[in-house]
């Protein structure tokens, strides 16, 4: 109820808001949009087991994803994912204790088709003993120009709650009651998928991401020089900026070769306000063989510069406002080589299953750091002179897929 204050301005009549020219323009836009337009994803179910082993970390667990149409216009999806983590990584050995924990993630979403427009939305919930993350996403996709072009605009929003585990004198691990931080994320994306020729299709993606809140890892530490003390360095808490804005743009090209095989080339450029600039290049080759098999191979190369406030070894305590030693912010490059095989088979006594495949994929990841050293060897080589750290990891996936 408005008791006092300035009188309300008289409501403008619709006709006074826009000039006749603008009204004509708006009318044309409204008429044009519905004339533009989609296909819902296929009904399918996937059950996957994943295993990661590298850098004294093993992560394995199941993943399930089911997608089903309801009527002609609606497709629902739901999934479950689990990470069973056992970690004694170099960071853990330096500044924390080896641990075992489980991360569980559930997701649900829908795609609604109206004409040639697809509206999608979903929700993802992830929880682990010291981290809870909720994410929602929304997108609108439009097929146009004889279905040669698909434009998709998306938005995602994330809310994270960050805790820190401590070990009580009784040996029980629980959340530190003095530590509870939050982080918020926003992402805005634009994608264009374009059929270029009868054998070539291109994808262009752009995404703007903003992060705000507690963005550091609460367990990891920086180290600074302390000549004559212990191993020659002292550990201290990381200090991160509370905001980060990232821009990423990518192009993907997929080409159908003169024989039945596909070649994919991808490139992504990334830059953020922390000074990280990254380039990702990937080549994939897919080859069907012997009627029931599909083989694929991939090569991926990634490089990044370090964040402006990153250092492997700071000269002294409180050297600058922001200080980090998270190796994800170091300068490094990675090589990933992968291969997979898919076998299509019929499931007996299940006529409702249209198609089914058994799949296996193996990737090897090599990370070579340019300014992240193995601090555990400081006693042998001296602080700042340790060998650069390298990470070798094997990533294994086995999964079954059915289309129904």
């Amino acid at each position: 109820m408005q008791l006092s204050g300035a009188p309300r301005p008289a409501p403008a009549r619709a006709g006074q808001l826009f000039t006749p020219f603008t009204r004509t323009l708006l009318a044309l836009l409204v008429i044009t949009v519905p004339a533009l337009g989609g296909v819902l994803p296929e009904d399918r179910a996937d059950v996957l087991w994943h295993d990661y082993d590298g850098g004294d970390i093993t992560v394995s667990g199941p993943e399930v994803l089911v997608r089903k149409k309801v009527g002609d216009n609606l497709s629902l999806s739901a999934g479950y994912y689990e990470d069973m983590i056992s970690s004694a990584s170099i960071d853990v050995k330096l500044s924390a204790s080896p641990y075992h924990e489980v991360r569980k993630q559930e997701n649900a979403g829908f795609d609604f088709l109206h004409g040639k427009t697809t509206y999608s939305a979903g929700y993802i919930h992830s929880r682990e003993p010291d981290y809870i993350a909720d994410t929602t996403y929304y997108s609108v996709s439009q097929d146009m120009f004889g279905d040669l072009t698909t434009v998709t605009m998306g938005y995602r929003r994330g809310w994270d709650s960050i805790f820190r585990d401590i070990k009580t004198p009784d040996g029980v691990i629980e959340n530190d009651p003095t530590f509870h931080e939050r982080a918020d994320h926003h992402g805005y994306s634009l994608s264009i998928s374009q059929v270029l020729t009868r054998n070539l299709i291109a994808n262009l993606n752009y995404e703007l991401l903003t992060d705000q809140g507690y963005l550091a890892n609460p367990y990891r530490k920086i180290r600074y020089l302390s000549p004559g003390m212990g191993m020659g360095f002292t550990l201290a808490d990381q200090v991160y900026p509370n905001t980060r804005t990232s821009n990423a743009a990518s192009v993907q090209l997929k080409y159908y070769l003169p024989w039945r095989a596909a070649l994919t080339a991808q490139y992504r450029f990334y830059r953020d306000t922390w000074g990280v600039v990254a380039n990702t290049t990937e080549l994939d080759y897919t080859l069907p063989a012997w009627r029931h098999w599909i083989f694929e191979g991939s090569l991926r190369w990634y490089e990044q510069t370090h964040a402006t406030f990153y250092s492997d070894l700071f000269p002294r305590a409180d050297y600058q406002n922001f200080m980090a030693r998270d190796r994800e912010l170091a300068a490094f490059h990675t090589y990933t080589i992968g291969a997979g095989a898919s076998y299509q088979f019929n499931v007996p006594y299940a006529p409702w299953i249209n198609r089914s495949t058994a799949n296996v994929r193996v990737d090897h990841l090599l990370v070579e750091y340019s300014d992240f050293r193995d601090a555990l060897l400081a006693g042998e080589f001296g602080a700042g002179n340790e060998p650069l750290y390298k990470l070798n990891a094997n990533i294994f996936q086995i999964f079954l897929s059915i289309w129904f």
Partner: protein
Amino acid sequence: MSIAKKLTRACSAALLLAALGGCAAPTPWVKPYEREHLADPIMSFNRDPVSSVYLEHVLETREGAHGATGAVGGGCGCN
């Protein structure tokens, strides 16, 4: 005519042309009956989402860059 009005007119005209361009969409240069290769499952950018989303999650937690992959993953404290 003020500069603001000229600018408004120019932008409006550009929008109008874009809208009319949408009405008169170009004739598809790849006809539906020529899309046999494009319809082959091996031409899908994301043939097995369950696998590609997992692999992307593994790489993202070890690299500084993220985004512009066309997929949406949930947040986690995974490193």
